[in-house]
């Protein structure tokens, strides 16, 4: 079970790096959707018995992270007719390297933290911290509003992975993570129906500079 779980977690780490290195926003969205599916499966691997709160977490996570949000992001992409992230603050290759460094840092940092007995052999903590960091890198280095939203989604996935450590003791607290999805939903709806698109015509947050100091 632990082996399978760690395989899934390593796959998630690979996906992070892929998301950092691609300029096609559609491809990144697909990767993040796939990541959502894998995340939804983690509770089944962490747990031996299937209880109702866990089944609920699985269903809710997969529906929201892998279906609902990616499909509204794709709709926003279609409406706004954008395909590529234009020149990010840090190039695609350097950001992969940065992501790899962040992953290494997460592994080292997680090594310092004591874990409860049955969590010792899993990569949950380092994967979670690495994913949060990668999400943060995406968020601050990309200019397109929609890429920033995807970055936030990755950051949030990292938090979801951490919550798996608590799923046994506090199953309902884990559901709080779902509240974060609310933000993502709001951001994307903002972009679709709201005026970022009309007002700035290209959904490029670099245009949001009239308030710069």
């Amino acid at each position, binding site marked *: 079970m632990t082996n399978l779980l760690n395989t899934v977690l390593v796959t998630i780490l690979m996906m992070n790096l892929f998301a950092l290195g691609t300029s096609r926003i559609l491809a990144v969205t697909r990767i993040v959707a796939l990541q959502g599916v894998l995340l939804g499966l983690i509770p089944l691997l962490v747990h031996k018995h299937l209880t109702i709160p866990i089944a609920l977490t699985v269903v809710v996570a997969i529906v929201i992270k892998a279906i609902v949000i990616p499909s509204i992001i794709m709709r926003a992409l279609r409406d706004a007719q954008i395909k590529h992230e234009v020149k990010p603050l840090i190039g695609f290759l350097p950001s992969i390297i940065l992501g790899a460094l962040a992953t290494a840092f997460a592994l080292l940092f997680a090594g*310092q*933290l*004591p*874990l*409860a007995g049955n969590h010792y052999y899993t990569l949950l903590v380092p994967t979670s911290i690495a994913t*949060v960091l990668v999400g*943060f890198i995406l*968020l601050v280095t990309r200019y397109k*509003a929609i890429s*920033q939203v995807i970055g*936030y989604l990755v*950051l*949030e996935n*990292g*938090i979801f992975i*951490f*919550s798996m*450590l*608590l799923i046994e*003791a*506090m199953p309902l*607290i884990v559901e*709080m*993570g779902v*509240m*974060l999805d*609310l*933000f993502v939903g*709001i*951001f994307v709806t*903002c972009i679709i129906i*709201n*005026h*970022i698109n009309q*007002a*700035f015509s290209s959904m490029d*947050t670099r245009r*949001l500079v*009239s*308030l710069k*100091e």
Partner: protein
Amino acid sequence: MAYVMILFPLFMAGVALAFPSNRLRPWLLPLTAVIYSAATVFVLTQPDLMVTAKWLVLDPAGRIVLLVVSTLFLFCSFYTVGYLQYRKERSNRVFCACMLGFLGIMSVVVWSHHLGLMWVAIEATTLVTAPLIYFNRTQRSIEATWKYLMVGSVGIALALLGTFFLAYASLQTGLESNLTFEDILRDAPQLSKPWLHAAFILLLVGYGTKMGLAPMHTWKPEVYGEVPGVVGAIFAGGVTSCAFLAILRIYQICIAAGESAYISRLLLFMGLFSMVVAGLFMVNQRDFKRMLAYSSVEHMGILVLGLGIGGPALFGTLLHIVTNGLTKGVLFLSSGNIHRAYGGKTTDVVTGAMRRLPLSGTLFLAGFLAITGSPPFGPFISEFAILNGAFSMGRFITAAMFLVLLLLVFIGMGATVLKVVQGRAPASVQNTPYRDGWLTAAPVIILMGMVLCIGLYIPAPLDTLIKDAVCFLEGRP
């Protein structure tokens, strides 16, 4: 009682959404605020009403924030009616509903004794206040809303991770934990230290973003620069106080866990850094609303600094929540009046506010003197108490830096404020429709009176309230 204080404003928010008349709708705010304030006074005098459930308790620290926010909201609600009379061209449906919704959610923050519930409530304050920023529907206000949501939601995400870390800190040592504040406070000494340290940093950064501590303050000048004055007052006195309450909770847990040395270093650093950033950006600031935003960053820094000093400075820190909240109300409301009368908010167009608006101009000047800690106003007493605490703890360097930074802020802010109030008003602004009226001036005068009153004499009930809260924070009975 908690349910009444939470559900009543939310119910009124629903009424505001359904209410047909744009002209009469703003009056729902004062109506709600008066009843809410009466409820606040009632609950503060009835100790047996303060526990509704294990996870809904009005503790001494919460009482202070509740008192500040409901007082501020009361005056802002009357001001809002006056303000919206000048904005008849725009539907105020969402504006009124969000203001009332904020009041309800603020009650959840204040009452919640469960770290998860508190997190949900603080997230909800972000969501419910975002439409208020967007009220003017200009390109700049969209920018400000986007930035607020983006920065705020990252902060909220980090705070959630911190909450999870804290939960794991108790799980890892095999404690039965459920994140109720009482339980976690009781188990604090047994919590796993490395996880607690990491949780504290994440929660400080997360809720600090919501408070607007540097370097996570970047949303503040944008938002405060664009919002109507009354929303600025609610943000600077209400939203930030709620976020500070969250930090107080974490502080208390760490103190109970015996980690005061570790956290006080971080708090002192964050506090002084915020003051430095605010002081530097305030120098030569031409936009007086952005100047107020940096002043808010500075005062959040002072609050965190006071917490970092701890011990004898705690009284001053808690008093500073009150004095800062009320003075920020004066400043934002009077600056809103000036903005409206001049149709601009930079010192290029705004001069001679004393002549154009004798009342608002004077109040703005008095508010400036108060917030920079000049006697005989309230913030002087609270800042002096913090300084005194720093000296009696032997933190001389901190105290010296605190004084120098206060001076820097005084000079930077003074230059802008004097440009605004002094001189001759340009002829063009004499014809703008705004005149100081009852609804837009009286609330500010009363708030200023309260700030002055606290400076001269701290009323006995407030004094007891703060002393209780100090004992509560230090874990003394």
